[in-house]
């Protein structure tokens, strides 16, 4: 028996204290590592979402700017006037049907699968067919169009022009990337204005 005890005692091994310390240090470092890993993953998602929103914002602003610059704004016959601020822009083209951009209803089928998303829809055949121009997970929270003057300066009403103001369009857009995690949601809001290059008078 005495010999057995000696053998056990001389076996190489760790004490309970040593094991506890090792486990504590190990789990602590794993905890830190996983937190760091997760936060980097979140950061990379955020960056990707942000770049998706920026891409959509750039495209939409440049697209509308280009169209509004070189295409006449469709006005009702004077003295009829446009709504002061809307979320639809109608441009009339001489040889083709009107070009329209509008904000969709919430959860429009064309916008993708997410139920709470609004997107921007474009029609180049006066409203018969519509196509989305924003990405599936990008929610267009705000799409505000302001056209002035509200009555066309290019068509006579009686013997006079109602106003002498070159058409000017202001557009304000706010887009949000719909991510499941709140910390990955990215928003961007921008505004620009375009003075029409269509000179009639």
């Amino acid at each position, binding site marked *: 028996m005495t010999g057995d005890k000696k053998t056990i005692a001389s076996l190489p091994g760790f004490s309970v204290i040593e094991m506890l310390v090792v486990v504590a240090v190990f789990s602590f470092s794993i905890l830190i590592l996983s937190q760091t890993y997760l936060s*980097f993953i979140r*950061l*990379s998602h*955020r*960056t990707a979402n*942000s*770049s998706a*929103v*920026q891409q959509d*914002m*750039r495209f939409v*602003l440049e697209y509308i*700017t280009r169209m509004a610059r070189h295409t006449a704004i469709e006005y009702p016959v004077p003295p009829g006037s446009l709504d*002061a*601020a809307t979320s639809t822009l109608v441009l009339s083209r001489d040889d083709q049907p009107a070009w329209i951009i509008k904000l969709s209803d919430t959860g429009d089928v064309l916008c993708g699968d997410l139920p709470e998303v609004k997107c921007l829809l474009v029609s180049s055949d006066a409203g018969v067919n519509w196509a989305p121009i924003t990405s599936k997970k990008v929610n267009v929270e*705000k799409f*505000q169009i*302001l056209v*002035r003057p*509200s009555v066309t*300066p290019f068509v006579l009403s009686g013997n006079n022009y109602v106003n*002498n*103001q*070159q058409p*000017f369009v*202001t557009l*304000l857009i706010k887009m949000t990337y719909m991510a499941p995690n709140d910390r990955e949601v990215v928003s*961007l*809001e*921008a*505004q*620009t*204005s*375009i*003075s029409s290059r269509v*000179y009639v*008078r």
Partner: protein
Amino acid sequence: MRTINLAGQTLIEMLIVLFIIAMGLFATVSLIFSNVALQEQDADQIVAINLAREALEMVQNKRDTNWLLGDRPFDYGLLVEGAVDSPVAVIDCTVVPAWDGSAIPDPFFDPTPNDLSQARVYKQGVEGYFTNVSTATSTEYQRLLTLAPICEDPNNSANKAVAEGACACPPAGFPTYTKRIGLRAQADIRWMRKNRQRNLTIYGDFYDWR
């Protein structure tokens, strides 16, 4: 006693390895963070460039409206003093758009601000339009327009110059560049991001060539 020749690393070797790993990690992490910072800067730049473009479009709209009105010079309300709809007292040729975010704005300009620090951009009204008129929430951005006439030699139309820093062409009688043929509008945007100042400048030339 038998000595066992245990294979292992020396302290120096371990230090070198740790140093190399640390360098690699540092490079990766700093790359990630600079990527994030640039992304934020990019987002700001989208807003800034569109605000700048808007200011230039407003100048163009003012010129075109002056043309439509027909009874005034092309730069009425911009560089010319004594306008009815815009009492421009030109002191240093710096203006901001005087649109207050309402649905029916007039295209005129406010000459009061003299530099960017007096030309804050605000968000206005229910819709939250960006404007230079100070009655609502302020943003990080400042926007100022600087106007300079483009002057021509009346005897030789090949000679033109931008009268930078001046609000008018030299008076008649000077040898050259006395005829005002256009104006250069420069839009400056300044904003702060993480305590660092960013700038953006664009300009456009608007001629009286109808």
